[in-house]
Structure formats: C-alpha cells, structure tokens
C-alpha cells in the first residue's frame, strides 16, 4: 500500500520536472538555441493525441470489444500517412496569416467573421471541456486505487469534500503551469517552446510507463505473447474478441466510421491543431513525423491486447474494471512501484492533453468570444488606452483558469456517469464537424461564410441531438423516454435511429447524420449566392497559398489609405510598444527603409499590421481594428475579380512571353542545326570538288607533259613517240570516263537520273555481261565460271543500269585477278524475295580498313602501283543504283583470299513500287 503523501509527492515532483523541462526549453529559446527545432520533438509532441483516455481506456476497450480498440490508432496512422499534404497546407496558411487556432482559421477563411469564429469556439469548448474532465477523473481514480481507496473489485471509492479533493489541486497546478508557459507572450504565433518540450517529454514518459506495464504482464505474469494468446483462445468467450463479428458492434461499417473519426480528430482536435500547425517550427519536420508518429502509435499499442487479455484471464471477466488494468494488474501482484510508474505515465498522458487543449481552447475563447464582445463596447473603443497587452494577457489567463475549472466542475458533477465515460468518441465526433469548413476552405473557392455557418450549425445540432443528449439521458439527467420513443413521441426522431436509420452503432450513426447535414448545408448554402469580395479574396489567399509571392497572386486585396501614425499605436495597443517597434523595424529593414516613420502606408504595410494584430487578437478582430483607423474602399466581388483578373493577365502575359522566348530558342536551335547541316554539305561539296579536281588534273598532267615534250623535241625516236602518244590517248579516255561518271553520279544523287524500268531476266543479263567482258578476261588470261539456275523470276528494274553494275563488278574482278592465273566465279541465286548475284575473284583481297571506304567516291582499293585505271566512282555509282531499286551491295573479303562482291535485288514489291514512285515524281 502506497501512502497518499508519497503519491502526491511523486506527482508534484513529476510536475516540477515538467516545469524544469519547460523552463529549460524556454531559456534555450531565449538564447536562440531552440530544443524544439528538431523533427523528433515535433513528432513526439504530436503524441499528445494519446491521452489518459487512450492510456487507460484502450485496454478497457480491448477487454470489452477486442480488436475494436484499433481504429482509434489506425485512423491517425492512416491520417498522417495520407494527409500530410493537407497538414502542410494548413501550416503554410497558418504561418502566412498568423492564424493561431481552428476558430481563427475558419473565421479568417470565410471573410474574417466574428460570428463564425464564435461558433467554432463554442463547439470546441463544448466538445473539449468534458474531455478535460475525463483526464482529471483518470488522475483522481488512479490516485484512489494507489492509496487503497477501492472496493474488492478495485473500484475507486470517492469520498471527501471539494476542499479535500486532490483533483482540484491538480487542476489548479495544471492551470498555473499552462498560464506560466502558455501566456508568456501575447503574440500566439510565437511558439510555446517550453510547453512543446514538456509535451514531447511527457510522450516519452507515458510510452515508457505503458511498455513497462506491458512487459511485466506479458513476461512477468505470463510466458510471453504466445502464452497469453493461446490461453485466451482456449476460452470461448475471450476468443470471440479477436473477430469483428464476435464483438457485437456494427461490423465493417462501424470500423470505417471509427477509423474516419480518429483520422479527422488527429487533425482537427484543438490540441492536435495546436501542436501540429501552430507550434510547428519548420515545415520539413512534418516529413519525419509522417513515420515517427505512426511508429509511436504502434509502439504504444503492442501491449494493449496482452494487458487486456491478461487482466481478463487473471481477474475474470466482470470483476475489476478493465479501464484500470494498467494499474490494478501490478497492484494485485504486489508491484507497487510499477503501479506508481504506470500512474505517472497516466498522469503524463492526462496533463499533456490538459495543458495543450486548454491553451488551444483559451486562445479561441479569448480571441473569438471575449475580444469581439469587448470590441462592441463603446467604452472600450473610446477609452484609448495606449497599452492593452496586460488586459489581453489577463483575459487569456482567465480563460485558461476558467476552462480548467469548468473541466473540474464537469468531473465533479458527472462523476461516474455515462456522459463522462463515453466522452472520448463524443468529443471526436464534435471536432469532426470542423472538417467540411476547413477542408472546403482550403481547396474550394466557392465556400462562403453563410455556408460554413449553416454547415457547422447543422452538424453541431445533429451531433448534440444524436450523441450529447442521449449520453445525458443515459446518465439519468434527462428523461430517457425520448430515446425509446423519439421527440414528441415521433418514432422517426429517435436520436439513435434518426429517420429510421438502424443497424449502426450510435457513434457511426451520429457521425453519418451530422457530417451529412454539415456537408450538405455547407455546399448548398455556399452555392446559393456567390462569395462577397472579402470572402473571394480570403478564399484566394487560402486556396492558392502555395503560389503566394509568385507572379500573379496579390499579397493582399486591401485598397484604401492609411497613416503610419495611426497603424503603429494601434498595433502597439495589443502587442506593446517595444515589440511593435521591433517588428515594424524589421519590416522596414526588409524593404530598405531606414526609419519606421518613413514607411509608406500602402496595402502591404496595412496587411502586415493586420497580420501582426491577428496573431494577438484573431483575424476577425484585427480586421475590425484596422478598419477603424484606415479609410478603406470596400471591395465588392467585382473589384476582387478585377484584381485577380489583372493578376491572371500578368500571369498570362508572362506565360506567353515565356512561351515565345522558348519558341524563339527552339527556332534558333533549328536554324543553328540547319546551318551546321549546310556547312557540312558545303564541306562535302568542297571535298568532292577537290577530289574531282585532283582526278582531272592527274591525267591532264600526263597529257600536257607528253604533248609538250613531243612538241618541243622532234628528235624523239618513233618507238618513244608512239608510246607517248598511246599514253596521251589512254589518259584522254580516262578523262572522258571520269567526266561521264561524275555527271552520272551527280544525276543519280540529285535524283535527276532517268530510269527506264522493264521486266528484266537477271539470268540473261548476267550471261550477257559475262559475254561482254570476255575479252577483258582473255587479255588477263583469266577463267570465268558461271553458276546460274535454269530460270529465275523476272524483276522490275532499269536493264542498262543493272548491266552497268554487273560490268563494273566484272571489270573490277578482271583488274585485280593475278595475271594468267585469274579465276572468277559468277553466281546467281534466289533467296526468298531476293535475287542475289555474287562475283568472286581470287585476287589479293581487300584489307579490312578498305572494306567500307571502297564504296566512297574516289577511294580506290588495291596497291597503288599496280592500281588499274579507274576513276574511283564505279562502286559508289553501282551502290547507288542497287539501292535505288531497294537492294543492297556489299563485299566480303579476307586479305590474300580474294573478294566476293554481292548484290541482291528484291523481286517485285518494294523495288518496283519504289522505282515506280520515283518515276512518277519525275
């Protein structure tokens, strides 16, 4: 048995430790060495999601509903994995416009409406006060269990008056803590570093404590997971906990609803918005959190089922309250220190939630409920108190205290009632009502203030009717008959079977109706009228927040005139003179203006001043204050659209300009390419000309030299004279051949050659070519073999051109075969759709490096000294001819092993049509 004094001492020591952590973080922040500016702290602070309700309650849920405890964790895990882009956008919007709460977010988006902000604040307050009460209850009953104030079944016995109730003191201590670290500065966008550090620390403590209990139960009381589960399966009643059907709830639909609910709440619970969005230091931290947070959820859930099953196996079903197994299992087995650690873990979970939730809610209460009322007081407006910072801080501190005392009050009044026990999910359902207005506001320009008001009001009313009132009735505070028979006895108004909808559990049922009404009203009322100028401008600023600062999106839609001398004191009233001068000096420096007084009171400055104010008193109130000192032109929808039009025109122009410059660049590239091609062609032409010149000059040189010699010297003897004249004649023939072939080549290449196609018999053509060149081979003493089939199909081509190819190949062979030992073999074969001709000689062969170049112009092969007369154009021309008919000309050779020149022409088909097409063009 632990003494109350010890537990209280430990608890206070723990709270003091929290103070120390928070103080340390705040001091480091003051020195500019933030401890929370790291993604781990951010991710851990998000675990404020796990409250005492989940710390103790998930075991309870698992004990009664088996796997039904899971959606509460699956939802956030999925939510974070899937919606981090949405959260990123919320962070960007909140930072850009200094938004400090969900109420402010929604109010600002829909035209900075006080009414909307107030409604959201009330929903948040109604939804969270009981939740805070639940945390206090968890602490109080845990305390009672530890000091032994419980019955045989470990049910805590509540005794004592208010003044003796330790819970009140815990509430007060928490209020003090929250006041101390939550309202040090006025500007709420200045993050609460100490608080975040403390919350992250608490997340670690509760995880360690829960894991310790889990390990104790699993490995201390049982022999590990396998042991617990096999023993549970052996028990028919416990085994049913492992299936959805066996646990009595509403099956997959219920699972879906529960997961969706948890998914929405991880984003829209005021405390989650506070830590995830308002307290975010760096958008990059979100990336780490998308896996660390789910990992944390996994870790804290590993032992939920083992503890629940262990409790049921050891205590027996219906004995001790499963909600307290975390404490009672160690207690029942004499592990008091472990129980104390578990209690500290629960205390952590509870205090973390209470602190953050209270700060979030009190900010809403102050900025969206109290400030609007104050602004309406004429006395407040006229009493131009130059410094209201004290008043503002006072309001906020008062709000914190009030929220915590309200929570305590609810705890005292509701006690063991159903309304308190089931409040966790009921709270989730309340904040889920923010989803349509929030998400719609971030992604849909069409949403209006009236739509948001209608949606929120409808959703809230249905939530109250289908969840809140029934929970009151079940607590015995209302006559429960309307649950059975419906309001006014109308059966279709039964709150838990509204309009006859049955077969859903009460949470899924309420979620369905409230969200349906919420979304329906939001969309319908929004589309009823087009947005006002202010709604449209805020819509653009929110929806297009990622494009802000880029060409085309105005930073603000404000038009009018103002004086710096008016704006400065206004901001100073709420922020204090020192801070005001600081932020305005920084703004001036950014714009290169030396003194604050020299700033121009343009739209940018007014927007800046208003944003600063928004951080302190909320965007709606800031709007009212700024408009009180500036002469403004009210912006109608038309004006807003004009501004947007101008902006989009600028954007369009710059887009066009970009397109044009891109097109210009592309054109330049194309021209450059064309130019390079031309240059290349020019170079080829030069090379060709140079080659032709060389080929012409060479025979000319001989002709001229011999002619001059003969002319100069009549004494040359006859034999010499005849030899010289023979050379002159043969060189002249060479010249003639060259000129003809150059012209031929040029014609073929330029496409001006004439082609006279007919059906030709290649066999006859080959024989004819061999006959024609017979003398050449006889002169060289060479033998020609023919290997021709009986007949081949005719093919369509130019007879003379193909003959030209044959003659060229044969005369080449004749030139290169060895004198008197030459053997040339001519073969014709059909190969599929092709007719192939091979001319094989036993000459010296062609070195590998010449195999390609011999088909280039003026590149003759062979040893130059023995090089026969040739122009170097024969093979290139033959290749062109064969290719013209869709065929191929190639050579296979090994040095010393002779050479085989082959060409193949297609039968009909392509060659014919290609040639025909060519002819038609000509």
């Amino acid at each position: 048995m632990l003494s109350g004094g010890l537990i209280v001492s430990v608890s206070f020591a723990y709270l003091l430790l929290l103070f120390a952590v928070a103080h340390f973080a705040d001091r480091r922040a003051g020195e500019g060495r933030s401890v929370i500016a790291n993604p781990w702290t951010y991710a851990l602070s998000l675990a404020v999601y796990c409250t005492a309700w989940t710390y103790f309650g998930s075991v309870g849920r698992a004990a009664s509903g088996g796997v039904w405890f899971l959606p509460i964790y699956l939802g956030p895990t999925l939510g974070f994995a899937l919606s981090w882009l949405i959260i990123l956008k919320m962070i960007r919007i909140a930072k850009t416009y200094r938004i400090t709460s969900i109420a402010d977010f929604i109010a600002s988006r829909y035209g900075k409406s006080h009414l909307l902000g107030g409604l959201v604040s009330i929903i948040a307050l109604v939804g969270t006060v009981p939740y805070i009460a639940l945390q206090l209850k968890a602490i109080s009953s845990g305390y009672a269990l530890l000091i032994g104030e419980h019955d045989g079944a470990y049910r805590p016995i509540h005794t004592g008056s208010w003044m003796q109730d330790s819970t009140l003191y815990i509430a007060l201590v928490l209020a003090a803590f929250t006041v101390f670290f939550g309202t040090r500065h006025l500007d709420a966008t200045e993050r609460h570093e100490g608080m975040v550090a403390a919350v992250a620390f608490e997340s670690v403590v509760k995880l360690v404590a829960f894991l310790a209990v889990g390990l104790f139960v699993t490995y201390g009381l049982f022999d590990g997971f396998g042991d617990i589960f096999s023993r549970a399966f052996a028990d028919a009643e416990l085994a049913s906990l492992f299936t959805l059907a066996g646990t009595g709830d509403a099956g997959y639909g219920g699972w879906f609803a529960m997961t969706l609910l948890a998914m929405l709440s991880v984003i829209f619970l005021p405390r989650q918005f506070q830590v995830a969005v308002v307290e975010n230091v760096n958008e990059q931290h979100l990336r780490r959190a998308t896996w660390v947070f789910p990992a944390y959820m996994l870790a804290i859930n590993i032992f939920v089922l083992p503890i629940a099953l262990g409790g049921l196996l050891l205590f027996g079903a219906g004995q001790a309250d499963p909600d307290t197994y975390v404490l009672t299992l160690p207690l029942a087995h004499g592990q008091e220190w472990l129980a104390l650690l578990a209690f500290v873990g629960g205390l952590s979970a509870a205090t973390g939630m209470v602190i953050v939730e209270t700060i979030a809610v009190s900010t809403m209460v102050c900025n969206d409920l109290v400030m609007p009322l104050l602004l309406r007081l004429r006395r407040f407006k006229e009493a131009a108190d130059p410094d209201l910072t004290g008043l503002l801080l006072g309001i906020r501190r008062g709000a914190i205290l009030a929220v915590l005392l309200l929570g305590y009050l609810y705890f005292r009044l509701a006690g063991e009632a159903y309304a308190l026990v089931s409040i966790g999910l009921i709270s989730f359902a309340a904040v889920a009502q923010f989803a349509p207005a929030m998400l719609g506001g971030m992604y849909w320009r069409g949403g209006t203030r009236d739509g948001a008001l209608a949606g929120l009001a409808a959703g809230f009313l249905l939530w109250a009717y289908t969840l809140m009132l029934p929970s009151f009735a079940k607590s015995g505070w209302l006559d429960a008959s309307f649950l059975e028979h419906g309001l006014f006895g109308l059966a279709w108004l039964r709150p838990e079977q509204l309009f006859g909808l049955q077969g859903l559990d009460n949470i899924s049922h309420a979620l369905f109706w409230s969200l349906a009404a919420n979304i329906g009203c939001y969309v319908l009322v929004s589309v009823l009228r087009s947005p006002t100028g202010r709604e449209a401008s805020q819509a653009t600023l929110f929806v297009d927040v990622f494009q802000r600062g880029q060409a085309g999106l105005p930073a603000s839609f404000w038009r009018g005139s103002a004086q710096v001398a008016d704006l400065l004191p206004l901001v100073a009233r709420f922020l204090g003179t020192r801070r005001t001068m600081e932020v305005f000096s920084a703004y001036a420096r950014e714009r290169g203006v030396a003194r604050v007084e020299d700033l121009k009171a343009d739209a940018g400055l007014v927007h800046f001043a208003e944003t600063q104010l928004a951080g302190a008193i909320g965007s709606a109130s800031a709007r009212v204050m700024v408009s009180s000192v500036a002469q403004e032109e009210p912006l109608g929808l038309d004006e807003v659209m004009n501004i947007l039009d101008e902006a989009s025109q600028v954007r369009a122009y710059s887009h066009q300009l970009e397109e044009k410059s891109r097109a210009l660049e592309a054109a330049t590239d194309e021209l450059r390419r064309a130019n390079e091609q031309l240059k290349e062609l020019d170079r080829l032409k030069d090379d060709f000309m140079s080659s032709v010149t060389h080929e012409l000059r060479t025979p000319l040189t001989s002709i001229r030299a011999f002619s001059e010699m003969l002319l100069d010297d009549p004494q040359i003897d006859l034999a010499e004279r005849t030899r010289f004249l023979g050379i002159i004649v043969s060189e002249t023939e060479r010249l003639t051949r060259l000129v003809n072939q150059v012209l031929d080549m040029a014609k073929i290449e330029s496409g001006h050659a004439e082609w006279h196609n007919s059906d030709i018999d290649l066999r006859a053509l080959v024989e004819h070519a061999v006959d024609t060149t017979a003398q050449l081979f006889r002169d060289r003493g060479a033998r020609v073999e023919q290997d021709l089939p009986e007949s081949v199909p005719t093919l369509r081509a130019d007879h003379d051109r193909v003959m030209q190819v044959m003659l060229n190949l044969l005369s080449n062979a004749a030139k290169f075969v060895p004198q008197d030992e030459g053997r040339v073999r001519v073969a014709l074969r059909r190969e599929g759709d092709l007719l192939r001709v091979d001319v094989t000689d036993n000459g010296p062969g062609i070195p590998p490096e010449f195999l390609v170049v011999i088909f280039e112009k003026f590149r003759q092969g062979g040893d130059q000294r023995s090089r026969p007369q040739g122009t170097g154009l024969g093979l290139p021309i033959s290749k062109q001819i064969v290719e013209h008919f869709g065929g191929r000309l190639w050579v296979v050779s090994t040095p010393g092993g002779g050479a085989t020149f082959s060409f193949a022409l297609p039968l009909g088909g392509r060659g014919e049509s290609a040639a025909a097409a060519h002819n038609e063009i000509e």
Partner: protein
Amino acid sequence: MTKKILIVDDEQNIVISLEFLMKREGYEVSVASDGEEAVARIRAEQPDLVLLDVMMPKKGGFEVCQEVKSDAALKGVRILMLTAKGRDTEVAKGLAMGADAYMTKPFSTKDLVEKVRGLLAEH
C-alpha cells in the same frame, strides 16, 4: 658531277614523263612510287632534289617532306613539291613544311625544268 634526282609519284604515266624530262636534262634519276619507299631511297641515295607528289599511298608527300627537313643528315636534299590540289592553303602548307618550291599539276614542262635548274644551281 651529275646531280641526282628522285621522282616520287604513284601515277605511272607522270613518272614516265618526269623521268624522260629529267634524263634529257642530264640528271641521274631514280623513282619511288609511295612515301615509305621515298624516305628509304632519300636516306640511301641522298639525292640533290626530290620531285615529290603530295597525294600518295602509305605516306603522304607532306609527311615525307617534314621527315626529310627535320633530319640534319639530309640537309642537302632539296624538295620540289608537285600537287594536283591547287588551292592556296595547300601551297602554304607545303612551304610551311619546308619544301623548297611548289608546283601545281598540270605543270608546264619548261617551267618545271627551269625550276629544277634553279634549285640545283643554288648549291
């Protein structure tokens, strides 16, 4: 003493005409038909003058010229380059390589003979 002239060209007929011309002038003539043979003969025979074609297999005239001119042992060898490529850049290139004179094909036999006489007289 008879001057020695080496004729280097891969065109048989041009070799025949040059040989006839030079012999008629009373020079001692030898012949090479590609660049490698030319270098070998120049080293072996130390001719007074080389009539050097530019476009040749194995080793071009420019390479031969460069090799000869960079060899101190062959200081006395004059080079007259003959080319069928008549462009100015070719002429400039030849002279830059150290050729003593340059003629384009087809050449006048008279001019050639005069040029050869001139080059050999400079000795």
